[in-house]
Structures are given as C-alpha cells and as structure tokens.
C-alpha cells in the first residue's frame, strides 16, 4: 500500500530532510508468465496498465519499457490538452480524455499540475475563419465548449499577440476552448506508474522487446532482453517504434515515423496566460510554470528515427513566432529536441485488435497523443480486457484502412499535422 501524498506527509517528511519518502514504484525482474504485457512505458502504456488493473481486475500484468518510463514522447511533447476536434468520433475520443484529466490529480493522488488555461487557435485568412467557425459549431453540437473570438477579443484575451493588419499573416480572429490547457507531462507517467504499481502491476524498465512469439495466429509471448515472458495478451503502445514491433509479428501498419521538434526558451516572468496555436503559420506557444516558453515546431517530411529533426523546421517556426509576438525578439532558446511520432494517413490514431489473436495496437497518435493519454489508456484497457473495442474507439480500428471509413482529421483538427 502506498502512503497517501498530502500536506501532512510533506510536513512529516520535511523533518527527515525528505530522505525517507516511500519508493513510488518498484524495479522488479520479470516473472515467467503474465496475463497481459504492455510494450511501452510511456503515459499511454502506463495508463493502459493502470485501467486494466483498476477497472478490469487484471493485476498479474506488466509494462515493459526499453529505456526508462516517460523517457520517450511523454517527456518530449509540449503538454497541450484540448478536445476541439471536428469529427464526431474524434470529439468523443478526446473529450472522454479531457473529462478524465479534470479529476486525474485527485484520482491518482499525484499532482499532475493540470491547468485549464484555455487553448486559442488563430485564424489568418478567410478560409481559416470559415473552417474555425465551422469547427466551433461542430464542437458545441458534440457538447464541447468552444467560442469564436474576433480580433479585438483575441487581443484582449492574450495582449502580447501582434494583431496589426500589416503583418504577413494578420490575425482575423480565433477559437477558444476554455476547458483546454496543459499538464505536467512527467507527472502523468509517474502518477500512473505509482497507481498501477500499487495494484500489483510490474513496471520493468531497461527491458527491450526483441521478438513476438506466435503460434499460428495466436500470441504466445515476448522475447525480451531480460528473457522470454509468456503471455497471451500483448498491448503495443510504442509510438514511433510501433512499426518496428509490428514487423516482429509479421504485420504491416499504415504508419510513417517522423521527427517532431519542440524547444524551450530561458525562463521569464509570466507573460502568456494561455496556449496559442496557429495552424496556418505553424507556431504554437505556451509558458511553463518554470517560466520557459514552450514552443512546438513541425515534423520533418521524411521518415527518420533520429530524434533530432531539421534546423530549417525550427527556423520557420521561430520566424512565425516572432511575427506574432515581437516582444519575444530578444529571448534566447535554451533547449531543442525531437521525438519520433507515428503518423497515420488520416491523422487519427489506431486503438485496435489485429488479425493476430491477443495482439493489440495503440498507435498512430502522430503529433498529438499527449492530450489523449488517460482516455487512450482507458479505452485500450477495455479493448484488451474484453477483446472488443469500446464504442468510443470502435471507429479507430485498424480495418478502417481497408473499408475506407477513415476519420480524416488532417487540417480539420485545429492544427496542421
């Protein structure tokens, strides 16, 4: 049983110089056999394990992670959470996640620093205006909060935006989802890891999957760097490396893995109170609690697993940022990094069974998976436990690429992918 985190535990541990905090999760060797194994110890994988144990009573399970937990895209994203998607299927999926986010700190007894500071999407031309207005209507029909702001209202909500009509891409208005915001990405992984571990889930780090053992069309286990693990259910949540795992099982996925970059500036006093995204000029920015500007750039247009990304992509983003926020012109950037994102042809994820019994994939989140972490874990756990999708992820099955019933969120999803 884990001790409860509270103001009292903080005071109590202060007396022993914070040297006696209980271990948040263990570091076990893998058992010979599990009822289910999740490949990938990021936010989505750990959330899947947490909900498998909590809602489906599957406690003899493990999460295997090649590196350390939360060290992949969970630790590399720009922490934006929103649910203002155009299509009904996406709206259902992402708002399910947003509703879980709203109580997640309490549920996990772990402060994930969820901050509903709003997400504003800017329109820079008449087509943007039409598309964004249409999206706010679609959102509201789906019960998702969304409002249209004209240029003056944009300026009032975020005063540092340059709303001059004389810039290259003038701000003609924007949409605002007030329930949207940010969360502390590492805390999400750690909170789920702690919660899952408390219910008996083994979290096995530095354990790379080398192969998937099949008997015909049934999964029998995993070859890993820590030996063979017998299991009949494998959930793959490997983000950019999903295709690598799929190849081990002899499957092909409709994915391309590309580097996506982000960067942070030196820390400054609070200057931007919300998250501002711009589809047309591809720039988005928010400010972390430490005071750094968190800036998201675009993906490179070619397949690569290098976790670096090209300089010209960052340059393009920073040009757009400077035009929209001239006040940032003398800021220095501190760090830049890349993560490998797995992009589906329709820019929607796959949360699905496969033709191989006991093999499930949760992948294709592309450039925007962080926001869905709790919902993704919940629905993927449902899919694994029942061998059937939940109604909220039924549309995100892998067979949509055969039937043609795509969930085409390219451009419609409030940001270019």
């Amino acid at each position, binding site marked *: 049983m884990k001790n409860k985190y509270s103001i009292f535990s903080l005071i109590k541990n202060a007396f022993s110089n914070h040297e006696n905090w209980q271990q948040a999760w263990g570091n076990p060797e893998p058992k010979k056999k599990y009822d289910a194994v999740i490949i990938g110890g990021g936010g989505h994988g750990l959330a899947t394990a947490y909900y498998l144990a909590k809602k489906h009573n599957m406690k003899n399970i493990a999460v295997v992670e090649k590196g350390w937990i939360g060290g992949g895209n969970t630790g590399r994203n720009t922490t934006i959470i929103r649910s203002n998607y155009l299509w009904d299927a996406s709206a259902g999926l992402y708002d399910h996640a947003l509703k879980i986010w709203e109580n997640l700190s309490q549920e996990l007894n772990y402060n994930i620093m969820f901050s509903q500071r709003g997400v504003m999407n800017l329109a820079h031309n008449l087509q943007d205006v039409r598309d964004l207005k249409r999206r706010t209507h679609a959102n509201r029909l789906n019960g998702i909060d969304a409002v249209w702001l004209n240029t003056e209202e944009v300026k009032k909500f975020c005063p540092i935006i340059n709303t001059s009509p004389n810039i290259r891409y003038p701000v003609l208005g924007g949409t605002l989802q007030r329930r949207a915001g940010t969360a502390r990405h590492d805390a999400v992984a750690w909170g789920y890891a702690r919660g899952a571990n408390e219910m008996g889930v083994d979290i096995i780090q530095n354990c790379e999957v080398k192969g998937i053992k099949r008997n015909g069309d049934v999964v029998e286990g995993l070859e890993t760097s820590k030996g063979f693990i017998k299991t009949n259910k494998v959930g793959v949540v490997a983000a950019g*490396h999903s*295709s*690598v795992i799929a*190849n081990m099982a002899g499957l*092909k*996925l*409709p*994915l*391309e*893995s590309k580097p996506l970059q982000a960067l942070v500036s030196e820390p400054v006093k609070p200057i931007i109170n919300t998250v501002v995204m711009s589809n047309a000029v591809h720039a988005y920015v928010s400010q972390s609690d430490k005071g750094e500007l968190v800036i998201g750039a675009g993906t490179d*247009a*070619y*397949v*690569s*697993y*290098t976790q*670096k*990304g*090209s*300089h*010209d992509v960052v340059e393009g983003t920073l040009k757009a940022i400077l035009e929209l926020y001239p006040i940032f012109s003398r800021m220095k950037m501190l760090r830049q990094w890349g993560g490998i994102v*797995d992009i589906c*042809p329709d820019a929607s994820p796959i949360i699905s069974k496969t033709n191989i019994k006991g093999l499930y994939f949760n992948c294709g989140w592309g450039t925007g998976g962080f926001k869905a972490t709790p919902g993704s874990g919940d629905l993927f756990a449902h899919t694994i436990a029942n061998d059937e999708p939940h109604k909220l992820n039924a549309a995100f099955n892998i067979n949509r*690429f*055969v*039937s*043609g019933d795509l969930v085409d969120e390219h451009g419609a999803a409030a940001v270019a992918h």
Partner: protein
Amino acid sequence: MFIINCPYCGKRDQSEFSAGGEAHIERPKQPTELSDDQWAEFLFMRKNIKGVQFERWNHAHGCRKWFNMVRDTSNDKIHAVYKMSEKPPKE
C-alpha cells in the same frame, strides 16, 4: 538534416528536396480486379523501416526530377542515390 547528392545537380541541402515515401511500390496492373485488402496494402500499408530503407525523393526546389535513395533511417546516413530508370543496388 543532411546533404543529398542529386543524380542530376550534385550535392544540395536536404531542404531543397521533398520526400516521396517508400520506393518500389508498384501500381497494380489490374486495378479493377483488386480486393479491398489489396488496395489498403497498396495505398496505406508501409514498411516504415528503422534501418536501411529504399525511398523516393524529388528535387523540388532544383531540377524537379524524381530519383531513388537508399538511406538508413536510424542515423540519416545516405548509402546510395540512383535514377528512377536504374535498378536498386543490392544491400
């Protein structure tokens, strides 16, 4: 980011080029006979290899010609560049 040796123009910065995805995916000879599964395979399914991959590139801001390239996607090292009409090198 890397330098690409265009078979027509010589060495240029990668930002001049656009990537065309996996190479040597043949367009079906009898499109009307294809099943949905075969269409999905042709249109959407990709090897997405971590390692040596054969791919198409276009010198979009140069000669605008298409060509093929062999590149290791785990470190972006280019192993070979060859014209569309040429046979792929053996790896």
